[in-house]
């Protein structure tokens, strides 16, 4: 037991490459990607709802009332409905639901 390789072998042998290790790495990488995308979706959803929640008090502070913004709201509602219909037509009903829910 005189050289570095002997010492290293006593501390831990060099294992041969195995497919199980590779599969473990790929499974972990996939799980990390899923978690990262879930966090991104959650952040997008929080940002969208926060923007909607902030829009009403900001509009109120700027003097907008339901009466004087009604035409704008009607146009927004019509555009949203048209966008949903277009998505449903392009991606199918399930695809549209997935897009709306962010899944």
């Amino acid at each position: 037991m005189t050289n570095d390789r002997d010492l290293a072998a006593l501390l831990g042998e060099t294992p041969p490459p195995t497919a199980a290790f590779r599969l473990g790495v790929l499974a972990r990488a996939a799980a990390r990607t899923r978690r990262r995308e879930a966090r991104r979706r959650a952040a997008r959803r929080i940002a969208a709802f926060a923007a909607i929640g902030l829009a009403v008090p900001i509009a109120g502070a700027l003097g907008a009332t339901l009466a004087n913004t009604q035409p704008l709201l009607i146009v927004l509602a019509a555009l949203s409905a048209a966008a949903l219909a277009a998505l449903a037509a392009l991606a199918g009903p399930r695809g549209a639901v997935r897009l709306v829910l962010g899944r």
Partner: protein
Amino acid sequence: MPAPFDAADEARLLALARAGDGRAFGRLVDAHQSAVRAFARRLIGDAAEAEDIAQEAFARAWEQLSRLRSDASLRAFVCGVAYNIWRSARRSHMRRQLRERAYARENADAAEQPRDAPARLALRAAMDALPPDQRAALALCLGADFTHAEAASALNLPLGTVKSHVLRGRAKLREALGLTEEGEP
């Protein structure tokens, strides 16, 4: 056993892996897993925990491949990631490891031991007593065929520091085994 490949092949596989090609990354894992797992085993001592950290290091390295310089070694990069994971997990794991090692020592007499078990235990104890940087430099350079320069790049340490860590660490391990520098007891 995967077929060995040259630097050009590795560069091509790295480019594919950066673009998200899982098969290319799998081939890189096969080529470097032995070196990274051996480093983790020597650094940590616990085979199961070492496997866990080595797998996590590869998975994180895949996400960070864009940070790998074109002239840098992938296995040194992955070992560096493994070292950082180990260092950040070390405090929380320390108590558990102490408990498990105490239990292992209590049961060591009852179980049948391999012939070199006392030497392994003495080496492990000496290794565990070393500071983290020195321990990692030794784990890389002792038997894993890493050059001092590669170890310096993996551990983000100056080359001279790595050389002195290896020299002093090796002396401490030999001392733990009761060996002189010439190798005689």
